[in-house]
Every structure is written in C-alpha cells, then in structure tokens.
C-alpha cells in the first residue's frame, strides 16, 4: 500500500473519444498522453495519413503510433523519460523504444512505428503502451487483419468499372468526353474514374491500388498509388494524365490491387 502512494497515476483509467485508455495523473498539470495510429506520416508537416485502428498486413507497410503529450510545457525544465511499447496478440512486447526529452525540448509529439509486413506480423489484436518514468499512462489497441491476397475471382467481387473521360463539368458535375479515343491538344488531359461496385467486398481490409497509365511502347507513363482504408467509405478512385505532349497511339489504363491486375481499359490518342 505504501508503494501505491508512490504511484503518480489513478488506478481507474478513462477512455477518450479516440479510444485511448488514459491513466490520469493524480497531480493536476502532470503529463498526459493521447495516442493515434496511422499508416504514414507526411514527410513535410508530420501530418497523419490513413489514421485508424484497423490495418491490413501488407508488404513494406508500417503502423505509426503518434503520441500527443499534454501538459509537457509544465515540466519543460527537466528530463522526461518515456517508453513506447508495442505488444503483440500473444501479450509479448515485440518492440520498445525509449525516448528521453532533455530540459528545454519543446517536442509535444513523440512517435514510433513498426513494420506490418506478413513475414513479421500475424493478424490479431495488438496494443501500444506509453510509459512515463516507467508508469503506464496511456494505452490503445489496434487490429491487424490478414494480408489481402487477391485472386481474379476476388477482383470480380469488388466490381471495378473504369470510365475514361476528358473533364468534369463544373456546373453539373457530369463527365464530359467519355470514350476511348482522345485528341492530343494543348492543356488537355485524359482522366480515369474507377467505380467500385462493392467497395467493402473485403470487409475492413486496406485496399492499396496502383493505377498505371501504359504508353504505346508498353512502358508506364505515369503510376500512382491510392489507398482506401476501412474508415474511408469512398468507392471511387480518380487519376489523370496530361496528353498535350504525348505521342499518338494505343494506350491503356491498368488498375492493380495488392499487385494483381484487376481491371484494364485501352484508349487511343490521335493527333489533332
């Protein structure tokens, strides 16, 4: 019981709207932490991309945990020690990072990331814990779904439909110049709109699409990656290329999901 008095946290946790389990400080103004998970961090501003709590196991993918520290400025004159601990579905810690903030360090966000490649992780419920001077102050769970392995029959379930067009009417929002033959002109573009007839065919799995524009020589002229995540109910994907300096000939637009070609549409560019 004496040792209980040495604890700086109350025993009963509080669950935030973002489902972070927080152990509030006994002393007003002491450090508190809020956890967010995301798929990527913006390299420029550190913004979170693809935030959520359900992720799919995937080659070269990561989960980032971003910890927002509250009341840090009350304690800016001293050393602060944090441990960020990742716990697997078997209850074992699989990665731990210690972060020491020196006096005067104004960082209010600390983060850690782990790979979620199939050779490293299994599907299941994981948790991420934040310790402040070795005491648990916040915890949040997330789920890893099995790797999505796409077969041609599975692609049909998603029911992708590609429409190629020139532009969208600003007034009506309707597509203008739908077709498969486009004329090369200055400032002209060809746009692709992909409608997914059954967006949630794979439940909550992350859908990582690669959109590839292929030229007459069979080489890619433009490639783009787009992720649709469980928290995002969007069922359309868009991409476009400029055609004013392109050579005439037969082109194609290809849609890949997890490396598997699931839809393709050919089109032709003609000289003006």
């Amino acid at each position, binding site marked *: 019981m004496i040792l*209980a008095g*040495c604890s*700086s946290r109350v*025993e009963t946790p509080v669950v935030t709207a973002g489902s972070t389990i927080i152990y509030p400080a006994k002393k007003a103004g002491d450090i508190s932490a809020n956890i967010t998970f995301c798929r990527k961090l913006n390299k420029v501003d550190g913004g979170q991309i693809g935030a959520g709590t359900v992720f799919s196991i995937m080659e070269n993918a990561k989960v980032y945990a971003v910890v927002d520290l509250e009341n840090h400025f009350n304690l800016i004159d001293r050393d602060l*020690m944090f*441990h960020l*601990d990742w716990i697997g579905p078997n209850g074992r810690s699989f990665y731990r990072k210690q972060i020491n903030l020196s006096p005067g360090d104004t960082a209010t966000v600390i983060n850690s990331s782990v790979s979620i490649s199939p050779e490293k992780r299994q599907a299941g419920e994981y948790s991420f814990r934040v310790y402040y001077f*070795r*005491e*648990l102050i916040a915890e949040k769970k997330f789920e890893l779904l099995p790797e999505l392995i796409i077969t041609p029959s599975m692609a049909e379930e998603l029911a992708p439909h590609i429409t190629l067009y020139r532009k969208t009417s600003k007034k009506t929002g309707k597509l203008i110049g739908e077709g498969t033959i486009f004329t090369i002109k200055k400032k002209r573009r060809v746009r692709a709109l992909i409608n997914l007839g059954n967006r949630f065919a794979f439940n909550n799995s992350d859908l990582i699409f690669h959109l590839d524009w292929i030229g007459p020589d069979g080489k890619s002229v433009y490639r783009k990656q787009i992720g649709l995540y469980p928290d995002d109910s969007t069922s359309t994907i868009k991409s476009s290329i400029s055609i004013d300096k392109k050579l005439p000939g037969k082109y194609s637009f290809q849609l890949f999901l997890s490396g598997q070609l699931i839809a393709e549409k050919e089109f032709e560019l003609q000289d003006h």
Partner: protein
Amino acid sequence: MSNTLAVKQRFEFIDQFRGFIGILMLVGHCSYYFNSIWLHLDPFDPLFPNWAQFALRYVGYLCAPGFLMMNGAMVWWSYHRRVKKGASDWSTRWHLIQRGLFLVFVQMTWVNSSWGGFKVFNPWHFGIIASIGFSMILLALIIKMRWQFRLLIALAILVIHPFLLQIPYNTDDTWATVFMQTFIDSGKFNKYPVLPWFALAILGSVMANGWLQAWKTDKQRILMGSAIAALAFLLAIALRMGRGFGTLNHFSDFASWSFFLDQKYPPSLFMNLWFFGMVVLGVTTFIVIGRAAPKLLKVFSIPGKVPLFFYAAHLAILGIFVKRIGLFYREGGVMESLIGVLAMLVIMLPLCKWFFGVKRRSKNYFIQMI
C-alpha cells in the same frame, strides 16, 4: 536478558530474516512463472502497468542484497566460531572456500537447469548463487581483517564500481563478456556481477560484527541498526537527488516509483546503499518483532535454516510443473502469483522442516553443504 538467551536471539533473527528474504524470493519467482506481465517485462528496463505489479516486482529487489549480506554475516560468524573452537585459520578459510565453490557448482548444475524444469542442461551461466559463492570465497580471504578495514574495502568497491561500468567491451567477444559480466557488468551471461555484490557481502560481515558480537543487547542492536539504516537512507537519497554520480536511471519526483527504480542489473551505488539500509532496517525490525511477538516470526525460521535447499527445491518444482509441464505458465496476474506463493509454501515448509532434520543428523559432506 541472560547471555545464553542473547546468543539464541542472534541466531533466530538472522535465520528468520533470511527465511523472510527466501519467501520474498519465492514471491518473485512465483510472479516470474505465473504472472503474464513477464510476457513483456524486461528486468533490465522494467515498466509497470499498476502499483500492484510494481510492488510485486519491487519486493524481490530486497532478496539479492539480503542474501549477500546475510551470507557475509554468516561467513564472519562461521569463521570466528570455528577458530574459537580450535580450528586453524587456514582450515577455516578452506571450509568457507569449499562452500563458495559448492555454490558455484550448484549454480552451474542444478539452478541453471531447474529454471526450465531440467529440459536443457545449461551450465554456462553465472547467477545469484554463483555470485554468492564467489563473494564467499573472496570474503574468506579478508574475513580476519578488522571491521573498519573491511568497511573501507566495501565502500571503495562501491565507489569505484560506477567507473568500472564505463569500461567498453564487445559483447561478441566471449571472453571479454564472461570477464566483464562475471565481475562488473550485467548481461545475458550474468545479471549478478561479483564486485558490487561482494561489497554487500563484506558489509554483511561488518554488520555481523555489531549484531553478533559488539552490540550486547537487543536495545543496542535496535538503536545502532536504526541509526545505520537511517544514515544509509540519507546517503542514498542525497545521491539520488543529485541525479549524478551513483545513479543510472532518470526519475520524476522524490518518492515516486522511478525514484526507487534505479538500475538493478548491475546495481547502481544508490541501489546498493538503499538496499543495504533496507536490509539493516529489516533485521532491526525482526529483532523488534522478535522481542514483542516472537511467534509471528517462527514461520520464517523454517526456510531460513536451510536457505539453499529452499531456493534449489522451490525453483525446481516451479520449473518442472509450471514451465515444463505448462501448469498456468504466465497465465495469471498479481492474485494468481500470490496464490502460487501460498501453494508453494504449503509444499515447501514441510519439506524444509524435513530437510533440516536430515541435515542435522547427517554427516554426509554434500548434505552439510546444502
């Protein structure tokens, strides 16, 4: 109090405190086997989800200093008792050295393998029992010195040890690792390097001078013990608050968890001073309780009289049944660990009583060593 009674009391409080430490160690080991926190608890860098888990782990921190100091006290007592009985100086030392070597042998053969229920024979590991054995051998060499010199040696080691920790070594180099982790640093090969723990054994022998000889009455033992413990605590707190020499881990505030949780493997100077004070305070408390309510402490005498047997047997039982057979292995929490302690005490106390009888009657060299 008559002199005879005083002699009896000396043995009892040492036995009882040693038994208490043994039971605390059982608490730690039951947690290690039953408590799911060990799925992610790194003893070198411990993190705790709540105070109960912290307390369960922290009580075990007293064990190593307690055993080393009690062992040091017993080495001192054994040496002087044998010499008084007429044994030669060298034969007495040789007896202590043999016992130390036996402890190293027990570590390499029984203890290392018992952790996993004897599934794998794993002699190449040093540990607390070997560290006690090694300390015993070294202590045998200086045990005849006056307590003031022994105290100086212990303090010198404790002060020099933090500097020795800065010696760089390559953990891929086996011999460098074995040498460093046998004597100075902690790691996979050994968590209990001899040097700092030898210092605590010496301090135990110094305290034995007072507990078992110089302080003639319990009142003196209580007063001197309290004063020495208080001095040790004050020194430790001063070091910790200085946040510099003698401390290794950051802490948030005075008297917070992190304040008490400085580095254990190997122990920082703060931890050595703090737990030296805790052991002295513990022994003093046992003397006080022994006077006021002696029956309360009787249970501790049982494992305290056969500490090595208690250690070796309970570890083997837990290793075989919990680890190897998989009976509730790391499935519970604090409560399940404590239930495990009770169950193990029900098994171990009669076993210890039985073995003590065997040991008293036996003339067998190995039985005497255990």
